[in-house]
């Protein structure tokens, strides 16, 4: 579904990512691991179009999308749930969810999609008129994921969904991720939490200083000494 081909990207002409090659097949759940500053967020931002590539290509469903604007990519179904949740605090939960589905493609199905999201997160359904800023961190993460789903995502990219959540909520969020995967959604999971990701993702890429240090199925990556060195900087 997604193919990253020799991607070089960074800020102000200075590359952060150096010649990244990666693939995500339809229906797969892929983990993207790495320590702080390894380039995880830069990679996910290049996929969503917030960072412009310096060279290389990104193919989505066989089409080169590396020059498209962020909103054009959302329309294609590449949807990012940004790090730190970033809900719109002064708007209600309903408004936040509706805004998730503003792209031309998703707009037509907003009522049905809304039902689905509420079915997935009944807690949100109970407080649709409440302002998003009044929710707890875990509930905001639910809302951020729900908002992403409203866009009719084909590829959902979750940036650090466990960040700052209580263990109970982390477990809950990952159960939801498993459920979405079981329903056939393709998911890219960006995480610092190594063990958690290895438990839920089938395949993983480990980034180190802007390059792929290790890759393969979860078991292989787990036992790869390069994974350990990428994390501990040894």
């Amino acid at each position, binding site marked *: 579904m997604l193919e990253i081909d020799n991607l070089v990207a960074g800020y102000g002409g200075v590359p952060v990512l150096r010649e990244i090659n990666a693939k995500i097949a339809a229906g797969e759940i892929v983990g993207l691991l790495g320590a702080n500053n390894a380039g995880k967020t830069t990679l996910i931002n290049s996929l969503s179009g917030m960072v412009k590539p310096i060279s290389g290509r990104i193919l989505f469903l066989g089409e080169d999308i590396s020059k498209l604007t962020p*909103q054009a990519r959302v329309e294609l179904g590449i949807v*990012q749930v*940004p790090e730190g949740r*970033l809900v719109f605090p002064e708007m209600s939960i309903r*408004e936040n969810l509706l805004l998730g589905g503003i*792209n031309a493609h998703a707009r037509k199905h907003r009522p049905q999609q809304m039902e689905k999201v509420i079915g997935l997160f009944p807690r949100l359904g109970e407080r649709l008129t409440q302002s998003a800023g009044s929710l707890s961190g875990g509930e905001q993460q639910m809302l951020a994921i729900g908002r992403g789903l409203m866009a009719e995502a084909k590829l959902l990219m979750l940036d650090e969904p466990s960040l700052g959540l209580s263990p109970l909520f982390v477990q809950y969020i990952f159960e939801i991720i498993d459920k979405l995967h079981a329903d056939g959604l393709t998911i890219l999971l960006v995480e610092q939490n190594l063990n958690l990701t290895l438990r839920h993702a089938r395949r993983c890429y480990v980034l180190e200083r802007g390059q792929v240090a290790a890759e393969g199925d979860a078991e292989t990556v787990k036992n790869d000494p390069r994974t350990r060195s990428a994390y501990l900087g040894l």
Partner: protein
Amino acid sequence: MREEFYKTLSSPIWWGTLAIAAIMPFVLSSYYVHILTLALVYVALASSWNIVGGMAGQISLAHSLFIGIGSMFSAALLLKLGINMWLGLVISAVISGILGAVIAWIDFRFQLGHLSFVLITLAFAEMGSIVVEGWDFLGGASGLLLPKDTGNFLAFQFGGGHGAFWMMLGLAAICVLVNVAILNSPLGYYLRTIRDNEKAAQAIGVNILRYKITAMVISAMLASVVGTAYVRYLTFADPYLLISPVITIEIVLFATVGGLGRAYGPALGALLLVPLGEILRGKLGSTLPGLHYFIYGIVVISVILVTPRGLLPLFERLWARWRGPAVAGKS
């Protein structure tokens, strides 16, 4: 989302308020009518600024430029080239809109942060005032004097006094209505997502460039039109008043005190602060020069300290508290 706008359009409170305001010239002395006219000018200006500064959260200090184009340029077109002021109003509004689009584009293209945006727009405003002061066509530093207002509507004349008041009332009502319309439209929601978090706005697929430009163009054109009407009321096109960044600072102040990003906030701020400033000046200006500024400053600072989000949210809270027990009693 649009129902709210139609509700406003058919609201008896809205039209009642307008009707009561419209008979004010028959009730009040011409001095107070003048103060109210000034207040309406600032209601219109603060409301038009609110689209960019309040809803999209972009503190633009370039608005003196749009007011200046609307006033100085349309006055110059009339006096130097004999162009009817209605046409001048349209030409100025179009130029202001284009300039607004350019500024919004620069902001997007170079990804200016909040502070850089403020400084860039201030630089534009300063440039504008330098151009006007140095260019004789626009009256230079001494300004331009418009012909006497004889009430010839086709020449953009409203007969001074009462006529100018009604014209400003209409213009202020339009600016506030545009605010209500935008806030209850998809555009209003998109602007608020941009204000709250540009990154999240991009993540849901908001076309940031398009909506930043749309907001700035609407805001700039409205400000320009109000500028043309204002200069007709003043008769004298004074560059130190109309294209000085100080006028923008006043607008920002009124909008902030009233309630940023709210449809009626900037209007409330201007309606309270303009008369307060004028009356303080009238009563105290001759006894102890400068005292009125002092009192005015204390009032503004107290408001900001007591209710940082403006008077409108404060009034709403008080209203809810007053109504609260009654509502609870019913249920």
